[in-house]
C-alpha cells in the first residue's frame, strides 16, 4: 500500500547513490507500485526513470528538490530544499520553467537557487512536501522552534494551497529527527494538513550506503578518514519495502495511506508529455518535408557541386527516413539555429553522430562529408532504433546575442542561449 514519494537518484550529482534503473528495478523487486523521483534542482533523471519504470512495470512520478538560497533565510547554515511533485501537465511545465529560470540566471554550472517570489509564480499544479533534514520544516524548526516551523508551513499553504501541502515524516532512528517528527505531527494537526511517510531515499539497497559516503567525500574533497560527520550516520536511507514502512509507521496508518492517495492524485508521467517537436513555420501550401527537401538539395549543390547518383541516392534515403519519422521540423529548427549563428558571426559546430548524415552536411549543420568519408547514417538515425536523433551543436560559452533579432528567429535565439 505504501509508495515512496521522496527519492533521489545519481542525477542528484554526488548525493544519490543509485541509478534510476537500479531504483526502478528494486521497486519491482519489493513490489512497490510507484516511485517519486525528486532530484536536486533538475529533472535530469526523469527520462531514464520513466523508461526504466516502464520496463519494471511501475509508475514514475516526476518532481524535483528546488533549492532556496540560505542567505535569504537567516540563521540557517545550509541551503533549504523544497520537495515538489508534478501533479499534472501544468505543474510539470511550471516546474520546468521554474528550474530553467533560476538555472539560466546562474553563471556557474551546477549552481543556482530560487527565490520565494519565483516559487509562488510557478506553484500551480505542484504538490509541496515539508521535507526531511534539508527541508523547510527542519530549517524553520532549527531557526526558531516550533512557532517558526508552524509559520513556515503556513507560508507553504498560502503558496501551494491547502490541498497541496503534505507534512512529511521520516524515521531513520535518529533522536533529532524523532523530535522533529513530533513537532511535525503537532503542526499537521493544528493546520489540518495530511501527514506523509517517506524514507528520504538516497540509494536502492543498504549496501549502497558506502557509495553515498564515497560521493560525500568527492563532493567535499575529503577522504573517508577525514570526512568525519559529513558521512552517513547509518544505513537506513534505502528503498524500504511497503511492508517495512508499514511496520515502521505502525502507529500512523494515515501517513502510509496518504502515500497511496497522493500517488493516485499525481496523474502526470512523462508518457503524457504530449511532446511534439515544435513545428517549423512554413508558408501556406508548403510543408516542412518539402521545405526540408528543397533546402537540403540547394545546400547539397553548394557542398558537392555535381550531385552524383551516389550522393542523390543517399540524400533520398535519408530524407525518406526523416519524413517517415516525422522529424522534418526538428531538422529545420536546427538548420535555422545554425543559420542564425552564421548571420550573427557566432561560431557553431555540429558534432557527434550527426556527422554521419549527408542531410546535416548539406544543411551546413555539420562540416563533414559523410558520403565521402563513408560514414554510416544508421548510426545517427534509423527506424529500428526508435530513438530520437541527437544533433549536438557546440556554441562558444560566453555569447551575447543581439536581442533585437527578427521575430522568426527569436525563439531560436532563446533556444540558442540555452
Amino acid at each position, binding site marked *: 500500500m505504501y509508495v515512496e514519494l521522496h527519492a533521489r537518484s545519481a542525477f542528484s550529482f554526488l548525493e544519490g547513490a543509485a541509478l534510476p534503473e537500479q531504483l526502478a528495478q528494486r521497486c519491482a523487486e519489493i513490489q512497490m507500485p510507484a516511485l517519486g523521483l525528486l532530484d536536486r534542482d533538475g529533472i535530469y533523471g526523469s527520462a531514464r526513470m520513466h523508461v526504466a519504470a516502464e520496463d519494471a512495470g511501475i509508475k514514475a512520478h516526476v518532481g524535483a528538490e528546488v533549492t532556496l538560497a540560505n542567505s535569504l533565510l537567516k540563521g540557517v547554515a545550509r541551503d533549504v530544499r523544497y520537495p515538489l511533485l508534478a501533479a499534472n501537465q501544468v505543474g510539470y511545465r511550471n516546474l520546468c520553467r521554474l528550474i530553467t529560470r533560476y538555472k539560466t540566471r546562474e553563471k556557474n554550472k551546477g549552481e543556482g537557487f530560487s527565490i520565494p517570489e519565483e516559487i509562488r509564480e510557478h506553484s500551480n499544479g505542484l504538490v509541496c512536501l515539508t521535507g526531511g533534514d534539508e527541508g523547510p520544516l527542519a530549517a524553520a524548526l532549527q531557526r526558531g522552534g516550533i512557532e517558526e516551523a508552524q509559520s513556515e508551513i503556513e507560508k507553504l499553504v498560502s503558496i501551494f494551497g491547502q490541498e497541496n501541502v503534505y507534512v512529511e515524516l521520516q524515521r531513520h*532512528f535518529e*533522536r533529532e529527527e524523532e523530535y522533529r517528527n513530533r513537532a511535525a505531527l503537532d503542526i499537521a494537526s493544528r493546520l489540518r494538513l495530511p501527514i506523509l511517510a517517506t524514507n528520504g531515499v538516497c540509494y536502492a539497497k543498504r549496501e549502497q550506503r*558506502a557509495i553515498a559516503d564515497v560521493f560525500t567525500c568527492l563532493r567535499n574533497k575529503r577522504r573517508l578518514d*577525514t570526512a568525519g560527520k559529513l*558521512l552517513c*550516520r*547509518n544505513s537506513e536511507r534505502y528503498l524500504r519495502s511497503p511492508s517495512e514502512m508499514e511496520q515502521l509507521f505502525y502507529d500512523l496508518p494515515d501517513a502510509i495511506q496518504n502515500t497511496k492517495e497522493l500517488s493516485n492524485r499525481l496523474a502526470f508521467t512523462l508518457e503524457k508529455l504530449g511532446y511534439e517537436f515544435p513545428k517549423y513555420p512554413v508558408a501556406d501550401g508548403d510543408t516542412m518535408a518539402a521545405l526540408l527537401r528543397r533546402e537540403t538539395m540547394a545546400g547539397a549543390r553548394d557542398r558537392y557541386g555535381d550531385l552524383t547518383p551516389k550522393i542523390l541516392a543517399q540524400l533520398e534515403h535519408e530524407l525518406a527516413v526523416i519524413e517517415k519519422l516525422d522529424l522534418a521540423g526538428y531538422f529545420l529548427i536546427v538548420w535555422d539555429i545554425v543559420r542564425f549563428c552564421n548571420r550573427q558571426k557566432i561560431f557553431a559546430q555540429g558534432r557527434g553522430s550527426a556527422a554521419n548524415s549527408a542531410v546535416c552536411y548539406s544543411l551546413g549543420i555539420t562540416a563533414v562529408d559523410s558520403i565521402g568519408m563513408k560514414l554510416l547514417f544508421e548510426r545517427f538515425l534509423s527506424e529500428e532504433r526508435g530513438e530520437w536523433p541527437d544533433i549536438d551543436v557546440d556554441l562558444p560559452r560566453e555569447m551575447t546575442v543581439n536581442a533585437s533579432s527578427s521575430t522568426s528567429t527569436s525563439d531560436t535565439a532563446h533556444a540558442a542561449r540555452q
Partner: protein
Amino acid sequence: MLFASVFIPDFPLQALFARKPELRTEAVALIDGKPPLLKVMAVNEKARKTGVEVGLMKAQAEMAGANVILRSPEFEQLAHRSLVACAQNFSPRVQDKAADLVVVDIEGLRSLFGSPEQIATRIRASLLQERLRVNVGVASNPDSATIAARGFHAVVIVTEAKQIGSLPLTLLGPSSELLETMTLWGITTLGELAALDARALSQRVGQEGVLLQKLARGQQVNPFIADDKELEFAERTDLEYSIELLDPLSFVISSLLERICADLEEHSLATNELDYELALDPPRVAGVELGDQQLFHRRTIKMPNPTTDRKLLLRLLQLDLQSHPPTAPVMSVSLRVHAVRPRYVQQGLFAPQTPDPDKLELTTARLSNLLGENEVGSPELLDSHRPRAFVMAKFEPAKVSDSKSPSRVRSPKIALRLFEPAKRASIRIRSDAPLQLSFDGKHGDVIKHSPPWLTSGEWWTEADWSRKEWDVQLQFADGAIADYRISIDLQTNQGFVEGSYD
C-alpha cells in the same frame, strides 16, 4: 688590517701537559700508531736529553727511561677548543686553521684591548691560564702573522718583511723537491728566498716557488675567512663509572645544565627544546648484536615558552626520566638545547588570569607521571559519528581565540555522565524494546524507553562499528529511579550501559 696568529708549538705535548701539568717536569715521549706498531711521535726536552728521539719504537723509548704515554685525541680536542674559545673572547672574526693554529682579525680592537702588542700579550696570557704556551704573531696579513707565530717565541709584531727574513725555509712547508732544489742553491732562509728574482724563480721552479716567495716577502697569499660561528649550546660528560640511580644522574645533569643556562644567558637567548642522550651499558650477551635502541636513550623535551630557568629544566628532565627511565646503566650524558630568542609577553592589564606556562608545564608533567600520559590535557572532540570520539590534546590556553560568534542565548542541555569503560550489561529485549537490565550486580526494570537509535560507521576499516542505543528510565530494587543510555554492539551482541543522564 691587522691580524694575530696564535700558534701552539709541540701541540700534542702541550695538549697533554695542559690536562696533566705534573708531567711537564718529567721526561715524556708520546707514542702513536696502530699497536703493535707504536712509535714515538713527540718528545719533550727532558726526554730528548735521555736519548729518546722521534721515530723510536715504544719499547726503546721505555728502555731509555722516558714516560711513554699514548697520544690523546681527547686532550688535543680540548686544547683546540680552548684555543678557539680564547680567540673568540677577543674577536668574533676567528679563522680556525688547524688544531694548533687560529688566526684572529684584531682590526679595530684598539679601544677595547689596547695596542697590537697589548692585544697579543693578553691573548697569550689568557691561554697561559689554560696552561697552554702559545706564540702570537701580529702582522697586517694573516700569512705573515702565521709565519711569525710559527717561527718566533712568545709575542712578535711584524711591521716589515725583513723581520721574518731570518726564519728557515722549512717553516713555509715546501714540497720535498722544492726544498731540495733550494738547498742545492744554498737558499735556506725566507730572506734569501725573498731576494731572488721572481720571474727567474718561476721559470725554474714553477708556481709553488712563486707562492712561497710571496709568503717570504711578507705578502698575503691565503684569504682570511672568518668562521661562521654556529651557536651550539651543548654539554656532554662521560661518567667514570656507570650510574643506575636517578639522584646521582640528576647531579650530573644539573651541572651540565648550569653551564648551558649560563651560556644561553650570556648570549641573551633561551631555549624551548632540549635533547638529551644517555649512552647505556647494557648487559652483553655473547653473539648478540646490540642495536641503537639498546645502546642509547634519546629523548626530547619541549617547553611552551622559552626559558633559561635551570631548576625548571632540571625538574622537567627528572620527571621525564621517571616516566621514561633508561633501560640500562648510564655511561655518558649529552645535553643539547635549541636556542631561540626569549619571548616577552605583556600581560593585558585586564586579561583574565590564566595558568602560568612554566608552572603548567611542570604540573602537567607531574600529573602525567601520576596518572599516565594520555590522562592529562584538554579534551578535543574528533569529527566522527562514533561515540566517545575525543582525544586528550595539549592544554594551551594562550592559543585559544574567542573566534566563536556569540551564540544566541544558549540554554543548558542535560548532560550525559559516562561510565568509562562502558559497563557490560545483559539486556532483555522484546520486539526491539528493552525490558530489563542487569549490570554491576544490580538489576533494573525498564519503566520507560525510547525508540532504538542506530549508528554505524568506518565501514572501510577494520574498526567498523555498528550499534543500537536506547534512552531508558530504570527502576532498581531499592526503588531508585534514574535515566540511562544503553547500547548493543550489533556485531558482538554485547549490551552496555553507556552512562547516566545527570
